[in-house]
């Protein structure tokens, strides 16, 4: 081990007891070595100080921290048992209780990441980079505003606010659930199925709009289908 290596390992606290004692003895007798150690310390301090060169966008980073990663209540062992028993009872009595199962629902897994008040273009880019899912830019324009974009495992969701009501548009590559249902109408030539929400598939992706009022959903679904078709036409033109 040469002096340089000894000096660095001494400063890093990486020398053994005897090596350290020997080096300190050498330091006491060698002013040039002591000077070099002092300079090395200044160099290391300057490296730590170089953190200031980066303007960290902390609030933007904090917004990217997934919000729903806390252990869900049904994962807590005691509550879990209770949930299983309740679930079984509900399932058995579902028919009598009018349990409203929604076959079009795309996914029940919790959101892993969320971004608030994005522009539709940013939301599409964010979903692409975060969940690696290509979604169209879905701008409702004058009709309403996007309030949030969320990603889960194999799904994404855009939250819209339209005329005081909240709507959620779920998107997923899992299209079977909607494709096996009979469409009740078409919007911009896209067959649309209706249940508790409105669903359709396009280019290998399922869309499911829920929330708000039935009239509101129809209006929004129509706008979104138009948006999807316009983008597809534009993309074809570019090709």
């Amino acid at each position, binding site marked *: 081990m040469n002096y*340089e*290596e000894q000096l*660095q*390992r001494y400063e*890093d606290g*990486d020398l053994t007891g005897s090596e350290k004692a020997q080096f300190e003895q050498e330091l006491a007798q060698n002013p040039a070595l002591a*000077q*070099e150690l002092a*300079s*090395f310390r*200044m*160099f*290391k301090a*300057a*490296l*730590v*100080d*170089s*953190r*200031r*060169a*980066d*303007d*960290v*966008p*902390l609030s*933007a*980073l*904090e917004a*990217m*921290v*997934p*919000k729903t*990663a*806390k*252990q869900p209540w049904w994962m807590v062992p005691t509550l879990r048992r209770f949930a299983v028993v309740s679930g079984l009872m509900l399932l058995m009595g579902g028919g009598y209780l009018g349990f409203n199962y929604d076959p079009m629902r795309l996914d029940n897994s919790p959101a*892993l*990441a969320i971004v608030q008040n994005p522009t539709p273009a940013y939301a599409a880019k*964010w979903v692409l*980079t*975060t*969940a690696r899912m290509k979604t169209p830019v879905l701008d409702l324009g004058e009709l309403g505003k996007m309030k949030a974009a969320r*990603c889960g*495992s194999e799904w994404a969701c855009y939250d819209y606010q339209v005329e005081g009501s909240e709507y959620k548009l779920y998107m997923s590559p899992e299209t079977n659930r909607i494709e096996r249902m009979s469409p009740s109408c078409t919007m911009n030539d896209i067959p649309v199925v209706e249940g508790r929400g409105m669903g359709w598939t396009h280019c290998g992706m399922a869309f499911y709009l829920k929330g708000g009022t039935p009239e509101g959903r129809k209006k929004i679904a129509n706008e979104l289908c138009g948006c999807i078709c316009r983008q597809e036409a534009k993309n074809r033109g570019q090709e």
Partner: protein
Amino acid sequence: MFVPRGNRNFEEAVRPHLEVLYRVAKRITFDADEAADVVGQTLYQACRAWPKFEGDHVRSWLICILRNEALGNKRKRASRVQESELSEEIVDPQATWAAVCNRLDSATIVAALEQLPIEFRLVSVLCDVEQLSYEEAAEALEIPVGTIRSRLFRARAKLKKILSETLEGVQ
């Protein structure tokens, strides 16, 4: 940073490390927007893997994910330089720390760091800038502690050489 095992909340566990993640991402990507994107991807992947995480060093684990996300599998493979190749780095015995330490500013250091090969740069950024222990850096980069030690020594030597040449050029 050590976080005790048990009922750890993901959000609370990762929040203290956001600044470190961003700076490390920026040293890899050289671009502020891309660095933020990489941090977002890292958080998403980390959240998915969180239930299976059993380690003690959350920061190292996050940096490990970030490095893999930033470099991608292809570039990661390309950057796995053989240790023998890295050993051939020349240490300039003439340059002293005294010659470089007096006129250093953050921008000069960052510019010099960005000239280092990626694996040297990461070791230097983790150990010297972000003050990770050798063990934490070894976990983050998935290499042995001994390799961290030797690579850090050579990274510093190379940095000293770059800085002394830069400062000579300024004079």
